[in-house]
């Protein structure tokens, strides 16, 4: 069982990345009440923009980060104005269709520009790794876990100690009531959507350093965020984050532990999240951390 600490560390790394992706997904669902099927694709596009700025334009990392940040804000606002805003007041099913269209458009654009092969963001120090007991961890992985915690703490502060956070929570609680007390809901939607996109783009860049980038990577991360959100309760931010780490632990242990002849091949790692979605929808559709009933 000496593999368990290493699996826990791996789970913490992937869980941190999932959490960064899912924060935006959950905030978008909470405030805009739509499932953004293009969330992972926005992340992928942002990461490719960073790749473009650092590798092809050869900018320094801070400059590239700034440029990616500005480009991601523009991208998120364009996506919101063209693909979500004209539709979401008619039916929640319409943004579902249009974000599917957005996802396909982003994926095909990126594969036309950068090709379908994997691209890797160069990180010089990836070769060496620290050893603590039986655990191996690279500096980059420490950075991922550390920054993810930092981001989550800052979101906690933002959501629970500022008037912005109170307004966001009011909107996700009951939109009509929030509008009645003069919360500027279109502006808030824009800010929340952009903030979520930036968080996920950061996660995408980390994925690019840790493994590599591929135009088809977006859908898988959308599904992970979706699974985490279903597990934690729709629009429930902390439930979603907890769900991310839970899914990450479960899939790492399911694939990593040796169950003799019943051990799962590594390829089934992703199927685990889908299985969780189905099980939660069947057994406790309101999410594990939600205490309000909903119509099923």
């Amino acid at each position, binding site marked *: 069982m000496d593999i368990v600490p290493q699996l826990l560390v791996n789970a913490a790394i992937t869980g941190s990345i999932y959490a960064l992706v899912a924060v935006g997904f959950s905030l978008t669902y909470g405030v805009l009440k739509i*499932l953004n099927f293009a969330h992972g694709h926005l992340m992928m596009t942002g990461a490719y923009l960073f790749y473009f700025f650092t590798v092809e334009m050869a900018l320094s990392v801070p400059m590239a980060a700034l440029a990616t940040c500005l480009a991601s804000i523009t991208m998120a606002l364009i996506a919101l104005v*063209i*693909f979500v805003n*004209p*539709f979401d007041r*008619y*039916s*929640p*099913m*319409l943004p*579902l*269709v*249009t974000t*599917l*269209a*957005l*996802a*396909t*458009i982003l*994926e*095909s*654009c990126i*594969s*036309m520009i950068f*090709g*379908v092969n994997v691209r890797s963001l160069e990180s010089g120090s990836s070769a060496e790794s620290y050893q603590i007991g039986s655990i191996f961890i690279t500096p980059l992985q420490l950075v991922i876990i550390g920054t993810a915690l930092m981001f989550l703490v800052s979101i906690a502060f933002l959501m629970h100690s500022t008037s912005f956070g109170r307004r966001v929570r009011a909107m996700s609680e009951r939109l009509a009531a929030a509008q009645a007390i003069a919360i500027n809901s279109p502006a808030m939607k824009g800010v929340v959507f952009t903030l979520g996109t930036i968080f996920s783009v950061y996660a995408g860049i980390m994925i690019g350093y840790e493994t590599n980038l591929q135009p088809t990577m977006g*859908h898988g991360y959308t*599904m992970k965020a*979706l*699974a985490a959100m*279903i597990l934690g309760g729709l629009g429930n931010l902390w439930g979603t984050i907890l769900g991310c780490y839970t899914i990450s632990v479960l899939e790492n242990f399911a694939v990593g532990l040796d169950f003799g002849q019943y051990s799962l*091949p590594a*390829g*089934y790692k*992703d*199927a685990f999240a*889908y*299985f969780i*979605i*189905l099980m939660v*929808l*069947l057994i406790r*559709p309101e999410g594990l951390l939600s205490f309000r009933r909903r*119509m*099923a």
Partner: protein
Amino acid sequence: MEYILHLAILVGIYLILAQSCNLTIGLGRLFNLAHVASYALGGYVTALASTELEMGFERCLISSALVAGLFATLLGGIALRLAGDYFAIGTLAFASIVSSLLINWKSVTKGVLGIPGIPRPEIAGVALYDNVQFGCLLGVIVIASLVILYCVFSSPFGRVLRGQAEDQLAMMALGRDVRLINTLGFLIASVFAGVAGSMFAYYINYIDPSSFSFSEMVFLVTIVVVGSPGSFWGCIAATFFLVLLPEPMRFIELPSSILGPMRQMIHSLVLLAVVWLNRAKLFPIQREV
């Protein structure tokens, strides 16, 4: 000439697939994102039955339809308890599990390598190696499927399916078993998707998971939405339009790495434009009085 025949066969397969998708997403407004999974199951059942078990054409076709139908019954039993976007999520999770199985269950599906060497169907001892003969066989199957689906669309059953999409409570108040009706609609749609998958496997002679990816599902949604959801003839026209739309691009000298994404992009732009124009009455259905 060979190229036109290829297009005709492609359109034929998509006619069955899109029209059956139109039955659930269009007529019933059940946002079933697992339709491609039924299509994939049909394709893989035919591929396995004809290469490993060496079964004949009729038995392959029927077993494909049966397996797809069983899948739909299972899926319907689970997913139809959910409403609205939860239903879409549930079916999407189901479809993702199926595609994950296709990629990872290597001892059966051979993973991403796919199953090669599917023989062409044999009718009365004659193997249809020629595309013209295969096209005739497909034509018969397409017309038969469309006639059956037309009957379903215009039957009382079709009207109940359409009615529950507009107002489920009213349909229940009229004493209809909405869950049963929806499951049946699911079953019929999935059976025809299985038939389409079977014909696809026979035509291409080779099958791999990339033919049944999520973008294929987006393409089906595009066809149904562009053809006005629930409209039988609209769906047929949209199938012709959308399958043939990117084809002129083949004559511009573009590398194939650009061609595939370009095709998807054109489809998505058409989808966005059509949803934009019809946004007020697409979901939920609004009658024009």
